[in-house]
């Protein structure tokens, strides 16, 4: 028996998310009345609606054939790592070093072998970034590790 597992999973997740939001909002914020809605009214109703919709997505998927798609784990982790590194390093070691590291990490998940073109690419991206954001736009951010 083939099922649309992707929709079952996401329907379930969305329904759970809706219930959590509704529950959390109902416990923490005042719901008020229709005439004078409290801050809780909107989130609670939305959470309940989302829970119902999640059910609508998950339940019919049980009897339906789904298509399988490859999940690009490697690419996703590489890009997420590059972004997180940028967030962490930017104010610590400045724009130039951060950009080079971020570009290198991002390109590490690209198809193709070899390290040379990746280093050249990182250098080019760093130069371009510096030229646009520092030289042209004069953004006020630390540029070098010592210029904090």
């Amino acid at each position, binding site marked *: 028996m083939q099922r649309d597992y992707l929709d079952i999973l996401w329907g379930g997740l969305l329904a759970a998310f809706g219930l959590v939001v509704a529950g959390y909002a109902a416990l923490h914020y005042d719901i008020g009345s229709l005439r004078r809605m409290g801050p809780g009214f909107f989130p609670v109703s939305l959470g309940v609606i989302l829970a119902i919709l999640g059910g609508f997505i998950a339940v019919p998927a049980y009897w339906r054939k789904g298509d399988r798609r490859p999940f690009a784990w490697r690419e996703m982790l590489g890009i997420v790592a590059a972004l997180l590194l940028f967030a962490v390093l930017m104010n610590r070691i400045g724009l130039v070093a951060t950009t080079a590291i971020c570009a290198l990490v*991002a390109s590490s998940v690209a198809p193709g072998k070899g390290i040379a073109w990746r280093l050249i690419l990182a250098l080019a991206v760093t130069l371009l970034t510096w030229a646009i954001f520092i030289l042209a736009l004069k953004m006020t951010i630390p540029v070098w590790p010592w210029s904090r």
Partner: protein
Amino acid sequence: MTTIEGLAHGLSVALQPSILIYSLFGALLGTFVGVLPGIGAMAAITLLLPITYYISSEAALVMLAGVYYGAQYGGAVASILLRLPGTPQSAVTTLDGYPLAQQGRAGVALFTSMISSFTGSMLGIVVLVVLAGWLAGMATLFGAAEYAAMMIMGLVAASTIGSERPAKNFAMVVVGLILGCVGTDVNSGAQRLTFGQPVLMDGINMVALAMGLFGVAEVITNIPIAERRGPPARVSLRQLVPTRNDIRRMTAAIPRGAALGGFFGALPGTGSTISSFLAYALERRISRTPERFGKGAIEGIAGPEAANNSASITAFVPTLTLGIPGDPIMALMLGALVIHGVQPGPMMLQSRPDMFWGLVASFGIGNIFLLLINLTLIGVWVSILRIPFRWLYPAIIVFVCLGVYSVRGATFDIAMVAGIGAIGYALTLASFSPALLLLGFVLGPLIETNLRRALLISRGDAMVFLERPIACGFVVATAALILLPLVKSLIRSRAPDKSRAD
């Protein structure tokens, strides 16, 4: 101010060299990002937002608008040559554009998309002028109840029209609405869903959300697939010339597409992507030879391309006259306007006619620019597609980081982009629509405020939405939009064998 006076005034604003140069720059940049798969108008506009602080408000808006409709022109290039939509709006163009390219008629397909885009935009401008004047006059009849009902109808229409699984779309809208609740509640000052984090007090940064859902998720999707298809064929100017038969097919499809796009673009919520899908469905339905569709029908390019460009122009109607952004890109534009101290709304036509008419005139000039640079530089745009994606995306990632950071100088927002990007990628893979999530996020706070205000004025009587004629019309339309797909799916489940067949 009459329309003629307005247009003359608008031309005098838009033809200033300092405005013209930004219009040209926006159009060029828009085409460039549109051609590149993986980044669209959204990412380009967010990156340009910080630049707009340094230039005049007219120049800023003209430039951003140029990027917006320029991307629609460029998007078709990758769709036709690589079967890889450069922008979501041009996804439909792949259906008939790519088969044409395989038959060696890529030039004709490109020409069709450009001339349709141009004509669609021009007709869209006419609709914009007519509708904006009319709606600005009507806007005094719009109270909180009408605003709320209209925005809810927009969200429902965006999730149900032309969709196979409305429940999945609705769910995305609701997730967006929930994310829109994060931050300080405007009415009571209460901190909602912030979990005590001061960075979340202003709410989730819209730029971070947009960049994560579009920029980052698109990059992740494209890394493994972008280079599998070989480089595109070269296209010379001579190959652009269509046959007489092609022209005959186009001339009927373009006005139909433009009219359809003009209508759906002006509704808040349903924008250029939906209208391009609808235009394709319309062309196939009324065609005497529907079997040609998907195998290189000219109408299958002309209709949708006219529709999405027309819609991208008329999307300015609710934005400029009511202050309601019809799509996430319009929300960014609205943000840019507010930064410059211009409050869009019913009064804008009276208080800032230079702005409104200047914008209208610049749309026309920008589209003439676009037609010229697309036709003459077609070789350049095609060769951009020859750049391997792996050389481009690291720079895109770095620009995303700096673009998000520049909004309010918080590295937290960059980390959030990472998380949102990963979730956005997983959602796209499960065929959820991130655009609807963003739309819900943008309209959520506006809907909540107006809903609460309407019910406060009516003393908690929900009948207010049915007693006021305009609001009632929106409510009835919303109900119809919800009930129609339900009825359809009921009929379909009665005849299970039939649904298997397609």
